[in-house]
């Protein structure tokens, strides 16, 4: 195990502290920027949601990489160990794609009442307030 010297290791740790804190602050700023807390009008531009979402996910993955490789010392372990731990997590890529797709189609089905393509009109009496499963308070007057 190729370890850093004690002094170098110590430096590396405090570098990590600053790095993670700064990345976290950048993430929070981007998140607030996307929700109009910093500059008005960003939320109205629909494409910003994807750009900011991508930046946030990328920064989080970078933080995860840093924690695993530096703090958990994966960098200094043999390659076989790193692969045997990290490779299985690639299964999650498919899980994310499949389940998000599933959630999306669930939403569409609810809207179309099971018939893809036919937009079901919500009955007027159901446009009031839902107070329980299928219990609506009517609100047509006013």
């Amino acid at each position: 195990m190729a370890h850093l010297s004690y002094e170098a290791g110590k430096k590396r740790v405090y570098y990590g502290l600053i790095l993670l804190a700064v990345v976290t602050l950048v993430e929070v700023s981007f998140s607030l920027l996307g929700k109009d807390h910093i500059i008005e009008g960003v939320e109205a531009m629909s494409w910003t949601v994807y750009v900011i979402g991508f930046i946030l996910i990328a920064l989080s993955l970078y933080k995860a990489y840093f924690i695993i490789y530096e703090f958990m010392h994966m960098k200094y372990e043999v390659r076989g160990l790193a692969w045997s731990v990290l490779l299985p997590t690639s299964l999650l890529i498919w899980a994310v794609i499949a389940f998000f797709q599933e959630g999306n189609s669930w939403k569409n089905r609810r809207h179309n009442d099971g018939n893809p393509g036919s937009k079901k009109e919500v009955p007027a009496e159901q446009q009031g307030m839902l107070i329980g499963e299928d219990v609506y308070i009517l609100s047509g007057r006013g």
Partner: protein
Amino acid sequence: MANSAHEPEVQQNEDLWSGGKQPLKVSYGKLMMWYFLLSDAFTFAGFLIAYGALRFSSATWPIPDDVFSTAPFNNFGLGHETKLPLMFVTIMSFLLIISSVTMVRAVQEGHRENKRGVVFWMLMTIIGGLGFLSCQAWEWTNLIKDEHMTVNRDPFGTHTLDGVYLNPDGSESDEVFKAGDGYLVHKHHVDHGDDAHGHDSHGDDGHGAEDHGSDDGHGGDEYAYEVGDHAGYVMDENGFVFKKFKVTTDGDMKGQVMAQEFGPKAFGALFFFITGFHGFHVFSGVLFLLIIMINAAGGVYVKRKNGYEMVEKIGLYWHFVDLVWVFVFLVFYLL
């Protein structure tokens, strides 16, 4: 002499089978800690992916920076009107990052066989973990007690249309909102009108709580405690006030009066379950850190002469807890 060609091979086989070899150059304990963490990562990933799937399946979803916009400083000095979106969870994140760093320091001191250093830095790590848990306790208390979120009720809703709120007497107020704005459905007897979407139109309606309905007819400036459908709001049997609003989005809905609704039920369940599961990891991590710190102070690991490997193992676990928080933070608060 003819046998000598086979000798190295036999020798090698015997070496392999005699044990004591570490093909991955780590001890059994550390290797198994890695594999445990891998399995735990799948558990957390399953939960977070479930959150994503349910979020994708819902037409609306609570807006995190509206939901998580309070901090203890709101109660002491700043006042409830001051919104602090994501500030408190950012502090919580810093606590975990700092405690991760102090953990690395403990491991480094362990490699030097420096008992005092190990104990000191582990103590710092424990304090960081306890700080995180305290913050989470406050966050949960605030959500349950003041904002009335439970595992099957989410009072944080999101508007899907533009509109203008009605006063309690049914007349139009000057409070407008846009599609995508969030709101919090208030409960009558704690509603001081002091939250995110502060309704300045009614000053002290919190006091009407004790004597139900006695304030009727006072210019309609208050939400009377009376279950049912009122001119400007609807009150359910639990005392939740669903304010009515007039739709201003162009289209066939324009001019229609609608009432607020609860947000998607799944949000409360997912929030308490996932952050609770993570908090439980932190809690058990603190317990293990405490045990190992006491052992270290008692000189148990000095005798083992393996560079405080036990501290390294609990360190792996502790960093993993920080690692999971990176993703919980991303999914629940940032996105």
